[in-house]
């Protein structure tokens, strides 16, 4: 583990000056909320290459250990790197075999340290991460940005989700949502994002984590409606050449 981490991002004395990377293949928003039994998290499966929607089956939510779910937006390759890192962390944790395990709080803190340290080296992991989980009956939901800003809340979103989904959640979220209500609320947020975020695709997964464990749904599409009268005859009132 040390050797992989040591290689990345280390600036040697004779290396050319490194600058912030540019993201290449990116995922868009992740939205998550706490509900009665645990955490619900949703993300679509799109990987954009600039303005092209290049990949349409990218899994952006993954289970980590027994107690947590990690969702990411931003650079997909950086997310994959993080997953490899976490995999090793969880492996060593399991190898102790002593009844102790890393819970969502610990993972959140660990990820914050990683993201912040990378930012300090001017070589960030270009992601916004959502970490949710349940351990010993305690629900936990937090976020870490690419510069290491982290916080905990009852509902979080990344990217466009912050602007489009969170206002909905602020109005309609309450403690002890049932599973069905939670999913409905998430779908409402994802639908708005689908209509308004150009990098969203209509293929999403909703993940749930409770004390019992994790489930990530099969990909599915949301129903959309485009039959608005304003869309019929769009050039009415402004006849042009097209």
């Amino acid at each position, binding site marked *: 583990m040390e050797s992989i981490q040591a290689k990345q991002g280390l600036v040697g004395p004779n290396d050319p000056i490194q600058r912030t990377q540019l993201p290449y293949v990116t995922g868009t928003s992740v939205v998550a909320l706490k509900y009665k039994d645990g955490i619900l998290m949703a993300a679509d499966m799109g990987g954009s290459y600039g303005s092209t929607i290049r990949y349409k089956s990218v899994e952006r939510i993954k289970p980590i250990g027994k107690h947590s779910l990690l969702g990411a937006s931003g650079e997909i390759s950086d997310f994959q790197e993080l997953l490899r890192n976490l995999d090793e962390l969880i492996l060593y944790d399991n190898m102790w075999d002593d009844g*102790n395990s*890393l819970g969502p709080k610990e993972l*959140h803190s660990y990820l914050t*340290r990683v993201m912040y340290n990378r930012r300090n080296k001017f070589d960030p992991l270009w992601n916004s991460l959502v970490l949710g989980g349940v351990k010993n009956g305690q629900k936990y939901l937090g976020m870490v940005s690419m510069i290491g800003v982290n916080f905990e809340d009852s509902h979080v979103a990344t990217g466009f989700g912050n602007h489009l989904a969170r206002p909905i959640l602020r109005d309609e979220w309450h403690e002890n949502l049932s599973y069905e209500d939670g999913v409905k609320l998430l779908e409402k947020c994802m639908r708005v994002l689908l209509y308004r975020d150009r990098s969203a695709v209509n293929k999403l997964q909703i993940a749930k984590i409770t004390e019992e464990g994790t489930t990530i749904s099969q990909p599915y599409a949301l129903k959309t409606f485009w039959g608005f009268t304003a869309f019929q005859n769009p050039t009415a009132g402004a006849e042009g050449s097209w």
Partner: protein
Amino acid sequence: MFRNQYDTDVTTWSPAGRLFQVEYAMEAVKQGSAAIGLRSKTHVVLGCVNKANSELSSHQKKIFKVDDHIGVAIAGLTADGRVLSRYMRSECINYSYTYESPLPVGRLVVQLADKAQRSWKRPYGVGLLVAGLDEKGAHLYYNCPSGNYFEYQAFAIGSRSQAAKTYLERRFENFSESTREDLIKDALMAIRETLQGETLKSSICTVAVVGAGEPFHILDQETVQKLIDSFDIAGTEEGPAAAPDSAAEGGSAAEGGAASEQGAPADEGVAPMDI
């Protein structure tokens, strides 16, 4: 222990397959003054005998707080003990910083044991009784200069620790369910055993407690003296658990008293222990 030609170097094996330097280090532990530890499901108590060299000097510190949930009592070369406590504190703090969570004591103990045996250094001449909590409850470990560690329900190390061990052996089966107060009382009784007749006073012993919801802390002299007085007055068994001092939660006479002994309000002062 007689001198051997294979004992100069920690990297030399004897023909019988022994590392004498390590064994000599373990002897050093036996020279130190006694330290004892015992645990219930929820609490761990550490105690030690603190004898000053002369009346003019203060006594050496043998119990160290490592983190809110871990403490250690040492016997042997106290200087080595200080170094190891510093290492333990450092490990705990680093873990807390990265994971915002307390380091499970079982993992700390393994790291400590691994540190013990370095071929280019002499072994640490100190035995450590590590008391701590983790997800699975309260734990007490003993770390040896040999690099071995064991988990215990109760243990004693240092000089005249055998007397304490004998006492603890008789009683340990009850410790799991003991209340905090009873555990402390048993610790004080065990310390008393190592004193071989000398009066137990709070000036020559130190007691520390850690438990669920109770961060590790060393009890102050006054509290300890009150506890000593209360069990002295009570006589042999726990009499009326009338220790109204310091947070006597559920001072259940039912727990410890077993059959309601006529605690014989002994006024003999120094009543011999006949348990």
